[in-house]
C-alpha cells in the first residue's frame, strides 16, 4: 500500500501537457499558495473542441498528477464534455487518491471549468453561471 497508485506516480513523474499556451483561448486558475496548491489550466479551443490543453501546478504529487490527467482527459474533446468532467472521474482515472488528497482532483475539475468559463466570457458566449464553481471561495 504505497501512498500513491502507480498511475498517480506515472502522471506525476512523467506529466503530460505540462506548460503554458501563450495565446490560450481560456485560462483557469484555482487554489492558493497558502493552502499549498495552485493549478492553472490553459485551453486552446477550435470549433467547440479542445484543441490543446496545458497546465502549470504548484502543489504536491497528486495535484500535479490530477492536473496532468485532467488535461489529458479533455484534450480533443468537445467543450460540453470538459464541463462534465468530475473530480471523481479524474481520481478514478488515476486509480484512486488517498482520502486527504481528494481535494487535488477537485481543484483540477474546477480549474478546467474556470478556463472554459474564461473562454465563454472572452467570446461573449452565453452560459448558465450555476454550472461553474464560485471563484471566490477559499476552502479547498
Amino acid at each position: 500500500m504505497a501512498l500513491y497508485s502507480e498511475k498517480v506516480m506515472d502522471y506525476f513523474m512523467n506529466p503530460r501537457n505540462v506548460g503554458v499556451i501563450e495565446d490560450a483561448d481560456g485560462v483557469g486558475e484555482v487554489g492558493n499558495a497558502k493552502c499549498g496548491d495552485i493549478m492553472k489550466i490553459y485551453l486552446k479551443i477550435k470549433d467547440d473542441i479542445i484543441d490543446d490543453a496545458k497546465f502549470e501546478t504548484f502543489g504536491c504529487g497528486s495535484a500535479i498528477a490530477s492536473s496532468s490527467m485532467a488535461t489529458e482527459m479533455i484534450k480533443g474533446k468537445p467543450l460540453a464534455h470538459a464541463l462534465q468532467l468530475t473530480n471523481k472521474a479524474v481520481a478514478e482515472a488515476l486509480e484512486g487518491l488517498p482520502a486527504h488528497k481528494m481535494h487535488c482532483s477537485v481543484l483540477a475539475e474546477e480549474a478546467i471549468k474556470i478556463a472554459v468559463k474564461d473562454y465563454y466570457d472572452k467570446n461573449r458566449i452565453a452560459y448558465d453561471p450555476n454550472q461553474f464553481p464560485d471563484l471566490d471561495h477559499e476552502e479547498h
Partner: protein
Amino acid sequence: MKVYADNAATTRMSRVAIDAMLPFMDTFYGNPSSLHSVGQEAAEALQKAREIMAQHLGCEAREITFTSGGSEADNQAILSAAVLGEKKGKKHIISTKIEHHAVLHTLDKLSKQGFEITLLDVHENGIVTPQQVASAIREETCLVTIMYANNEIGTIQPIAEIGAICKEKGVLFHTDAVQAAPHLPINVNEQNIDMLSLAAHKFHGPKGVGMLYSRKGILLTKIIEGGSQERGNRPGTENIPGIISMAAAFEDACTHMDENSAKVSALRDKLIEELSKVPHSILNGDLEHRLPGNVNFCFEGIEGEALLLQLDRKGICASSGSACASGSLDPSHVLLAIGRPHEIAHGSLRLSLCESNTEEEIDYLLKVVTEEVEYLRNMSPVWRDLVSGKKQFML
C-alpha cells in the same frame, strides 16, 4: 546513487546495535521477572543496560525507566509533573511552540483538564531564550518542558541555562532529547535536567524502545497499569533485546560523539553553503546552534511533497516538515512558529545526515536538489508570476 538523508525520521540499525540484540532473541530470552537462571540472565543484562545509559547521562541506574519510545517517555514525564503539580495546586506549564506533537498534544490534553499552558514564541532562528523562560515562570508553574534540539530545523536550545533557572525557581525541568541524543553532550546534573526523553531508533538503535530519565525523588505516574516492572513505573514484560540494543547503540554513539559530530557537521555545512546559493531560498533554523546533521531550507515557488517525490525518484530519501505530520495538509507548525508565511513553509526540505553519509553523496544531493527545484519551479504558476513580476518575491 542511493542517499538516505532522513536520519531525523529514523535511522538504519548499526551492526553494533544488531549484534547486541541477537543473543537476547534466542539464547538469553528469559523474562527478567522469572526467578530461574534464564530469567535472571535477562535481569542482569537489563541492569547492565541501565547502567550503561546512566553512565553516559551522568545519572544513576535507578533513575532510568525504559519505555516503548520517545513519545511514551514524553507523555510520562509531562503527566507525572502535572500530577505532582496538581497536588500542590500548581497547574501552569511552560513549553514552546516548536515542540514535537508528543509534547504538544499531551499539553493539549492537560489544558482540557484545567491546566494553563504557556507556549513560548521562538525567535526566527528557532531559539527560546532563558530570559523568556524566567519571565514566564509563576508561582503556579509546575513544569518547564523544552526540547534539547528541534526535529525539523535542528535548532539547539540553551537547556543548561534554562535548567539553571528552573532549579533556582524550584520548577521541574523536562527536556525532549530525542533528536539531541547522542549527538550533543548530555549530563543531567551539569545541565540541571530533572527529566529527559530518548528514543533508540534515532541513533541507529531499534524502533519501539525509549527511555525516561527522572531525577530520584520525582514520583512517576504510570501511564500503563499492570505488573511491577521498572520499579513499578512501567508495567509490561520488558523489551530486553530492544533495551540491550539501545544501550549498545547509545554507548557506541557517545564514544564516537566528537568524531561523528565533526564529520557530519562538515557535510552539513557544505550542504548549507551550496544550497544557500539557490536563488530565493532560505535556511531554516540557526546557523550555529544547530544539530550536526540537520539541513532545512525553504524554496520559494514550489511545494515540498512534490520535491520529495522527485528526489526519491533519483534515489534520495528526504523529508519535508516532520515525517510524523504526514497526512496533514497544514504546513509545519515549526516553520510557521519561526515566522515563515504559509506559502513559503509549504516549500520546505529537510535533509538529515548521519556519519555514514559521504562527500560524494553530498555532491549528488546538491546536484539533484538544485535540478529538481528548478524543474518544479518551471511547472509552477506561482514561480511564473514571481519571475514575471506579477507577484513579489518573499525570499
